[in-house]
């Protein structure tokens, strides 16, 4: 059943309902009709028997009965299916009127002084299985002798008539069922047309035509929700595709620079004989470019893997300030060379993957160092809250323009497209920070005043100690 089409399923169901209804109606009507007919015939038999008994009671003897045969028979003349038999109590036949030529069996007779009612009717099958109904009664003649009056009716005509009706009902009902199947198939097909329209619309949507949408106006109210949900899904897919496309383009673009450097420098070096130290310089420069490419690939793979649902986080609870101190020490030399001071404030326990925590803070700190002018300081803060912990990285510097604040965490986003030192940063550092925070169910945010303080804040929600947890 589950493999049948919706159309066929609905049609079958509808046909089933129609069939059941017709069967019930047909049965009830046929039953009522046959009951009605039999009741009428039964009443006729009973009335005839009553009349006959009344007439017989006024007759003197057997001879009179024979004499008045015509009068008695006239009571059953109207219906050719009726038969009449009058016998003496000894069993001698006085009158035997039998147009249907079907013998009347010996019926149990109603006593002469008892009212004849339909309940006394008896049924049997006569020759050739013809259904018969009949009734018998005793009557006392004036001379005191008793006679038995039997009235019977052959029901074959009625049976035939009902048979005709029955077959008529069957045929009509059958025809109605067939019409119902055809009509329901057609109507359901019509009713389901909006689904096919949606399917047609969906068929037209390809990676090249992701902007196409399902036409909601063509859908009936019941399908609006489905169509809107599909359209919302398409929008998300389109955005994902766009991002991916942008990402691929940016990546290819960023890979070009180091490759162009390697190729160009190597070609220039090969164009004429060089000293050994020149060759060494070239090779070392090539290795540096390779490192750059490797780092870029590593970052891109990290971002790609972080999106996989199987990415495993090894979260533990640890002291954030201790980690900040360690990271601060790592950058100490670099900061000192740039005349920048790193200070750490606050205490908090963080529930995070230690490796990723270090990576996120390091990326922010490296970023801060890049933009902090000499003589300023970078402040790392750890703040505990009831739901988790926040780590802040604050520095003074040129700040981030309001237009860039929302985009700064996007992959390959650089505030200054023509920045000359793009080689030193892959443009993925902050995207990695954002991804790490998403993996932790936390948040990365930034506040900045142009020419003032810039604060990046990472919020880590607290959680229960578990050795490993899957993303989402």
């Amino acid at each position, binding site marked *: 059943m589950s493999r049948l089409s919706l159309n066929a399923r609905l049609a079958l169901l509808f046909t089933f309902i129609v069939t059941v209804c017709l069967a019930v109606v047909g049965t009830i009507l046929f039953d009522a009709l046959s009951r009605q007919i039999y009741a009428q015939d039964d009443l006729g038999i009973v009335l005839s028997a009553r009349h006959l008994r009344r007439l017989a009671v006024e007759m003197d003897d057997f001879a009179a009965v024979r004499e008045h045969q015509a009068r008695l028979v006239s009571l059953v003349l109207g219906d050719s299916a009726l038969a009449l038999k009058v016998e003496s109590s000894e069993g001698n036949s006085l009158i035997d009127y039998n147009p249907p030529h079907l013998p009347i069996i010996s019926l149990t007779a109603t006593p002469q002084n008892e009212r004849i009612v339909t309940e006394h009717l008896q049924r049997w099958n006569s020759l050739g299985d013809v259904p018969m109904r009949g009734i018998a009664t005793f009557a006392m003649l004036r001379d005191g002798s008793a006679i038995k009056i039997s009235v019977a009716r052959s029901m074959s005509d009625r049976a035939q008539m009902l048979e005709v009706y029955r077959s008529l009902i069957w045929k009509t009902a059958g025809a109605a069922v067939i019409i119902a199947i055809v009509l329901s198939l057609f109507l359901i097909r019509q009713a389901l047309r909006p689904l096919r329209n949606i399917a047609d619309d969906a068929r037209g949507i390809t990676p090249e035509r992701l902007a196409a949408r399902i036409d909601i106006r063509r859908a009936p109210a019941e399908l609006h929700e489905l169509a809107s949900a599909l359209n919302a899904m398409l929008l998300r897919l389109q955005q994902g595709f766009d991002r991916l496309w942008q990402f691929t383009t940016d990546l290819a673009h960023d890979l070009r620079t180091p490759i162009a450097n390697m190729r160009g420098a190597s070609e220039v070096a090969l164009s004429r004989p060089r000293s050994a130290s020149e060759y060494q310089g070239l090779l070392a420069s090539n290795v540096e470019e390779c490192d750059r490419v490797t780092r870029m690939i590593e970052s891109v793979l990290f971002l790609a893997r972080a999106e996989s649902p199987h990415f495993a986080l090894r979260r533990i609870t640890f002291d954030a300030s201790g980690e900040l101190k360690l990271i601060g*020490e790592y950058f*100490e030399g670099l900061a000192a060379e740039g005349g920048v001071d790193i200070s750490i404030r606050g205490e908090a326990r963080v529930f995070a993957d230690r490796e990723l925590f270090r990576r996120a803070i390091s990326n922010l700190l490296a970023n801060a160092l890049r933009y902090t002018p000499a003589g300023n300081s970078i402040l790392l803060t750890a703040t505990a809250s009831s739901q988790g912990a926040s780590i802040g990285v604050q520095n003074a510097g040129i700040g981030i323009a309001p237009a860039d604040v929302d985009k700064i965490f996007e992959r390959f986003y650089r505030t200054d497209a023509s920045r000359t030192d793009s080689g030193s940063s892959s443009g993925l550092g902050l995207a990695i920070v954002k991804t790490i925070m998403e993996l932790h169910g936390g948040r990365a945010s930034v506040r900045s005043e142009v020419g003032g303080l810039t604060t990046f804040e990472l919020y880590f929600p607290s959680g229960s100690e578990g050795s490993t947890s899957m993303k989402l």
Partner: protein
Amino acid sequence: MRLLIVEDEAKTGEYLRKGLEESGFTVDIANNGVDGLHLALEENYDLVVLDVMLPALDGWGVLERIREKKNIPVLFLTARDHVEDRVRGLELGGDDYLIKPFAFVELLARIRTLLRRGPAREVEQINIGDLEIDVIRRRVKRAGQRVDLTPREFSLLQLLSNRKGEVLSRTQIASYVWDMNFDSDTNVVEVAIRRLRAKIDDGHTVKLIHTIRGMGYVLEVGEPG
């Protein structure tokens, strides 16, 4: 020390052979899994460097069959750094792995670590030229003069002197000294080396800490060769 390299990519195999031979190893190359397995089982090698992506019989198959017969150290190279791949390699009996592309000095360091039998000896005193390092008391003297180092600078110097004559990559240094196991875009290590060098080498004619451009850093007496 005899090494076997199983690597189908000719360029990779060639530079590995050259580099390892220049580092004092005897090297054989097999360019497919079947030959590699045959050599590994028939000959006596001290270590096998095994590429995972091989035609016909892949690296996992080779590793599995080597392990059925022999217990030589196997270092596998893979371009796919999926966690499952690494886990699989280690479960099959690989001793260590490197993800392509890797720094040659890193490979050299891993090979030396695997070939070193037993745990490294903890030395109490290191003397290189006129440099004296008291590991227990964490004190350093150059030409008899006390040199004050921060704890991290001391760790860095200790690492370089423990691996005297070995080139250490930036990644190795960051990992060992600061426990930072990811590549950062910054020149933190370069700066740290510069600062250490200022304390150790400045004012001395014989330089100890040398930069090998593009590869890393090495501590040895005189010019590195």
